[in-house]
């Protein structure tokens, strides 16, 4: 049972000062095995904070990240799943499912995690799953100010992944759960 945190688009300190306190209290070290970060942290301090939560941190570069050494894409394998990370500002139109599916095929992954739109989304299509954890701080995005802080926790267990979505709506943390099963075929696509 592997817990993977998917988080991104914090835009600290430019657009938001910090994560909501309720989110921070939930994110304690020791429970999470991997962190996948879509990008736009933007400063090193946030990187360090994530490092304290979990040593295994994967980040891709967002357009406002101050550290230019992050890669554009990244892929990793956790359990039976192949995960891909991409910030998403490179994929035009932003947030378009078909284009993202194209990226997913290119990276050859089962689960693609992207961001940039600051909206939580979880799509399942025949090729796999696309997850957008939204913005963890609720920072305004390029096209809207109405953003709820959100992030995603994936529980990978064998051929099944349970996606827990944590959203901060009206001062309360709301949790939702989505189940995805990988078809036990050699290729995910």
């Amino acid at each position, binding site marked *: 049972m592997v817990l993977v945190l998917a988080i991104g688009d914090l835009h600290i300190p430019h657009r938001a000062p910090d994560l909501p306190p309720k989110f921070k209290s939930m994110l304690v070290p020791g*429970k999470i095995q991997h962190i996948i970060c879509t990008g736009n942290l933007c400063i090193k301090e946030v990187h360090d904070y994530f490092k304290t939560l979990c040593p295994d941190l994967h980040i891709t570069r967002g357009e406002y990240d101050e550290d230019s050494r992050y890669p554009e894409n990244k892929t990793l394998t956790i359990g039976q799943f192949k995960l891909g990370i991409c910030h998403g500002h490179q994929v035009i139109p932003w947030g378009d499912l078909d284009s993202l599916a194209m990226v997913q095929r290119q990276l050859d992954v089962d689960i693609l995690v992207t961001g940039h739109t600051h909206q939580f989304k979880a799509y399942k299509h025949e090729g796999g799953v696309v997850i957008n954890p939204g913005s963890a701080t609720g920072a305004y995005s390029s096209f809207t100010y109405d953003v709820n802080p959100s992030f995603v*926790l994936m529980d990978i267990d064998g051929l099944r992944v349970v996606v827990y979505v944590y959203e901060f709506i009206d001062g309360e943390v709301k949790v939702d759960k989505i189940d995805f099963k990988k078809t036990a075929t050699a290729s995910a696509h």
Partner: protein
Amino acid sequence: MSKEIVKEEAPSSSSGVVPAESRPFGSLRGVQWRINLGILPPSSSIDDLRRVTADFRRRYAGLRRQLLVDPHVPKDGATNSLDLVMDNPLSQNPDSTWSQYFRNAELEKMVNQDLSRLYPEHESYFQTPGCQGMHELLAPLLYVLHVDVERLLEVRKLYEDLFIDKFDGFSFEENGVAYNFDFKKFADSVEDEIESQGNSKKVMSLYELDPELQAVVLLSDAYGAEGELGIVLSEKFMEHDAYCMFDALMIGAHGSVAMADFFASSPAAESQSGVPPVIEASAALYHLLSIVDSSLHSHLVELGVEPQYFALRWLRVLFGREFSLQDLLVVWDKIFSEDNSPLDEISDDGEHFSFKLLGSRRGTLIAAMAVSMILYLRSSLLATETATSCLQRLLNFPEGINLKKLIAKAESLQTLALDSNISSLPSTFVGAYNCSKSPINAHNVSSDLVCPKTTLNLVPDSYWEEKWRVLHKAEEQRQNSSEKKTSSGKKKWSERVKFRLSRTESEPLPAIREKCKLEHTLSVRRSLLEDLSKQLGLEEDVETAGCVEVSNSVDHHPAEVHRDGQNCANKGSICTVEDRCDDGSGAVVSEENSSIFSEPPSPPSSVINDHDHENDTEKSSVASNLSADDNYVHQRSIPEDLPQPVSLPPEDVYLNSPHENGSSGKMVSATKEKRQLSGKFQWLHKFRGSIVSEETSGKRGGISEAANSPNHDSKRNTVDSFTAGASSNSHPTNKGDAMDQNMMDTLKHLGQAMLDHIQVVESVFQQDQGQGGSLDNLSKNIGKGQVTAITALKELRKISNLLSE
């Protein structure tokens, strides 16, 4: 259990041909142990075995399902109603299944860590993932099961043809996974053969096998009751079986020896002495040792080596750490083969065994085993001069020992132990138990029982607490009864008692400080003493009575009397008379405390003296009293056999002016002679001694110096010396003359200070078995931790040194 029986009967049920083997199921330890531990019934038929096995396994599987939380499993079909906010993985809510899961994971991690450090030399087996969840006790159990399975595989390899599937005419490959299947067919044929008593070739060949192997084969059938679940010897169910064995071992299956008790830190409910069972068991060891080899025993006691220092480890892991794995298996074979049911002996006066450990054959064998181990090291132990080196020797049990001899000796001692348990009185440890709050006041019964003079009081704790209350109310009552009861006790005893008293009294100390409760204390003590004597009704009685008389007759400060009385009676009732002792009754005490006291007094007195200097008068005397008590108590560390009542109510600072009358002095000398009295007396003596010492310390700081008459019995351990010192403090005064008020006060203060220290040390001590069982250790009070304890001990040492001067 009845592996033999099973063995016999299994074949006999089928053919009655194979005779029973003397060693049941020779190589199948797993099954043998399971029978011994009560999991498998000693029944004859394989079917029964199988059924029971299957039952146990099912139970385990159920338990496992219940306890191993899997957050993915929906709760009873009500998935949708799960409150996700509460039950998500990151939830902080401690009730959520996820937090439970994480908690379990933490625990598992810790256990894994322990496991990885376990048996590093047997790495290959123990490091495998299958060993998860083991424990030092469980490890050998699982190992044994594993060995059994390996043996099974060996057997199968050797006798391949027996496992051939008769029907198909070709043999299946033997391998662990498929063997069940093989067996089904084979068992089918074999069963038929067996039942029908046919003369098929297979049957004959089965019976031609070593009976052991037969058993192996029969036990591994997949056929028979319960099918696969009932395979008695099965690789798949190793975990279940190991758990069952472990459970049986820990709970003891209604026997008198339950390992789980040994891990409990609080006194068992039915324990008379109110001390933790492991302490009680350790005291049982020493008790047995004292019967078998009193010189070694007294040597150990003198050095202050409390049995629980080493016995704790021995008992808790059933000698797992002392022997190599193979040796350990042999030892456990023996231990498990003994019956664990409680022997029923309830003494007429309504008291049960003094030692629960000795209450069953298995328990006595364990105790006997421990004693024989101690005896094995006899010469090296006798040669050591310090407690530390003694402990070193005991804790590093040598390798390459002649195990058979050891076991034989243990068996011989076992019968002795059985007998002894019947006659031993619980009083030995009842009295010693200190009522101070620290839960584990190990009374080092056996070690402390050197001066048994004073009879032990079997009054339970509550009694003493009542007494304390009474005392507390009537504080001023008995100041003058200061009897040197303590003197009667042997030095050690007196010291110990004192310590104990001090300990018990230390708690109420603050409250009492300002008052001189000598009289009150004395009266209580005296009454306690009387009670004690009544109850014990032993040889000591005379002395006790003497003490009582002495105390009664003393017209000096009641404190002293209290001291004595308290010593005799029990700690609880003793008030820190020292503090209270206003008048110079202390002087009386010293007189009474003859030589006995004189010897030990120096250390205590020095301690007391130090204390005096440190605290204000009243306080110090009380403290010293308390510290003395504490020391005493500590020494006793394993109070098992010390009667509870001894523990004085902490608040009773027996400030009895240490005026021991001549009578007490006489008594002291008399007691001295009786040094080698039975443990209980020893305790009492110590008690007295401690009381006396406390009194003396309390009363006369100054006197302590004087009092530290050099009559120390060299034998007495520091405690005794302390008590003696204290008493000697009183002695000199007694002997000399009326004590100075000042002296008494100083002594009191010292006593109080000591008591405080003792208590601190005790509390710390309990956790730290490694500390030498010296007085010093005892003097530390619960609480601050070893550092505090050590400092307290040092102070006590100083005081005692002063006193001894």
